[in-house]
């Protein structure tokens, strides 16, 4: 936490002012990724299940990262915002994984 003090010097509206053209580019990329996702879904028989999952997950994360970094301007914004978002996000992902493991199979012994 202490290192966030370095953010004290930070000031608002300091993330590099993107031109509207840049946002259009990001939007275009996100649209392409979405198209790719749908395409992957339509032709999912072409690849093995695992490949399909890996592909879709990476595409999903690419999209999410695009939105968070450039539309929500987390990139280059105050470090405290990154902390306040990334920590719960990591927690949420770990929680989902932990639950999926715990519920994948009921062992049946209290041990």
């Amino acid at each position, binding site marked *: *936490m*202490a290192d*966030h*003090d370095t953010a*004290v010097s930070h000031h608002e509206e300091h993330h590099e002012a993107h031109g509207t053209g840049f946002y259009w580019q990001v939007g275009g990329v996100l649209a392409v990724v979405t198209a790719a996702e749908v395409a992957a879904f339509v032709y999912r028989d072409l690849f093995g299940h695992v490949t399909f999952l890996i592909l879709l997950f990476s595409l999903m994360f690419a999209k999410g990262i695009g939105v968070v970094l450039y539309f929500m301007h987390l990139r280059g914004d105050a470090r*405290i915002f990154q902390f*306040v978002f990334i*920590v*719960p996000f990591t*927690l949420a992902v770990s*929680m989902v994984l932990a*639950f999926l493991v*715990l*519920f994948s199979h*009921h*062992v*049946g*012994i*209290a*041990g």
Partner: protein
Amino acid sequence: MAIAEQKLTSTAPTTSESFQWRSWLATVDHKKIGIIYIISAFVFFIIGGIEAMLMRVQLGTPNNTFLSADLYNQLFTMHATTMVFLVVMPMNVGIGNYVVPLMIGARDMAFPRLNAFSVWLFLGGGFLLYLSFLTGGATNVGWFAYAPLTQTQFSPGQGVDYWILGLGLTGVASIAGALNFIVTVLNMRAPGMTINRMPLFVWMNLVVSFILIFAFPTFTVASIQLLFDRQFGAAFFNPALGGDAVLWQHLFWFFGHPEVYILILPVMGMISEVLPVYSRKPIFGYSFVAFSGVGIGFLGFIVWAHHMFGTGMGPLANGFFAAASMVIAIPTGVKIFNWIATMWGGDVRLTTAMLYAIGFISMFIIGGISGITLASPPIDLQQTDSYYVVAHFHYVLFGGSILGLFAGAFYWFPKMTGRMLNEMLGKVQFWLMLISMNVTFFPMHFLGTEGMPRRIYTYESGMGWEMWNFIETIGTFFLAFSVLLFIYNVLVSLRSGEVASNDPWDAATLEWVVPSPPPSYNFLHIPQVTSRRPLWDAKYPHSTADDHHGEKSAPSQIRYEYSHEDSPGAKEIHMPTLTYMPMVLSSGLTVAALGFIYINQAILGLPMRVASYVFIAIGFVMVFYAIRGWVLDSRRDSPYLGHH
């Protein structure tokens, strides 16, 4: 002269001549809001205590018929719900509300209206929870409400729905409050009050606020899903229809375990403030104490299933959660050792607050040790759901949280009211409470190892449980008496207690710079902080030798402020105006929630449902009216538009 002014500006409801309802119902002052939290939490403490005594009377003798089974089940469920959600949490929030902005040199919380909204919504939730006693029985399924007992076919009636929506409201209130604390602590600190100079109480409030906003959503979702099960025929937690009973346990405890740290960490923060002051030394190992708090907060999220060793997760999963749980012993131990080391070599003054702080450590050691045995799955399989676990959490929650809160009460009462509590009475109360709590709770360890299951409303004679149960019941009466002593002490001291100066304890932190009680704007001049103990260093410029990290700092520029509402310059300080909107908003939500409880109760027939729709409609009208007014108010106060 200062004293005369303090009388004028006293905000204590019972002493202030200039008491008007509006100044409380429409307040956005963090100090008044804190006092509302504290008083209502204390009232709930009395109620929860009465519930506990009724239960103890029932268990005092075998085959007792003082209470019916169903009433007993309602009582133990509401006792736990009350003590967790309506006593310890709001008491922490209340004291934090009052003290944190003062400690960091701020004039209010970051969002004063949101703060008022939280307190009124918390009261709305408490109101719903207790309304259920009058509307056909409170919830009787235990405070962790294991599925599928909560399904309508096993729990007909609305008790569980009241519980869900009541806790839903308090949950929203807590999250709003936590967001407020996070922003306040991070963004409202006085110049020079860097993160690693914050008082440890502030630190712990920050940690707890993060735990809270990360842990509560899981419970919110689970209880919404349960509401859908009961009201709209979903089956999330109903195995008969393909749901999963264990899923509820995982979701509940993923919230429920961090919740216990929400209950204890702020109190640990209070202890870390009280011990140094009465030892006249700085806290030992500031950063270790702070970061062990962070560590406990983090670990709290990966140990939830140690409440569920018996559900058949298998030795591997149990082993993981056991190991993670045991690791918590390390940061906890570090805290305890540092507290002892803080007193070591100090000038220890055994005031009542100090006695309570020491009592906290002593009792918490016992609760922590019994926690270790419970963290070991095999041992847990014998001890869980027995009175042993009841003993354990009463040692951490009563011996821990409650004793710590009394330490905080005796420590900050002068600041809040301008009067000192009676020390003599306080000490008598301390020893009475310490001894009677041990008489009440320690035998529960024996009962647990002797096989007495928890949550039983009666037991047959000849099990060998009679003696201890009887002793415990006696103990509760002494416990209750010690609480009565405290009430008497408060009432007397408010009238005729010794008048408190700004800094009656020779303390170190900023809340003791301002008058007792402080004016609405707290600080006439925002202090410039240069060290961890701004006030102390100002008082003892030469005692700052061996400062942390060897950083030799010039003493903070602190002036005692004998200021009050009409001090010169006070008029220039722009504070947000009174508004009823937060209260209207909370009431609206409460009314709507009351409507939702009956929204789909086919058994109750059409009239009830129509009534529920009407309630929901009224509620939402109030909500929208309040939001509109709120927005307009905040515009009126908007800093951008300059002062008016």
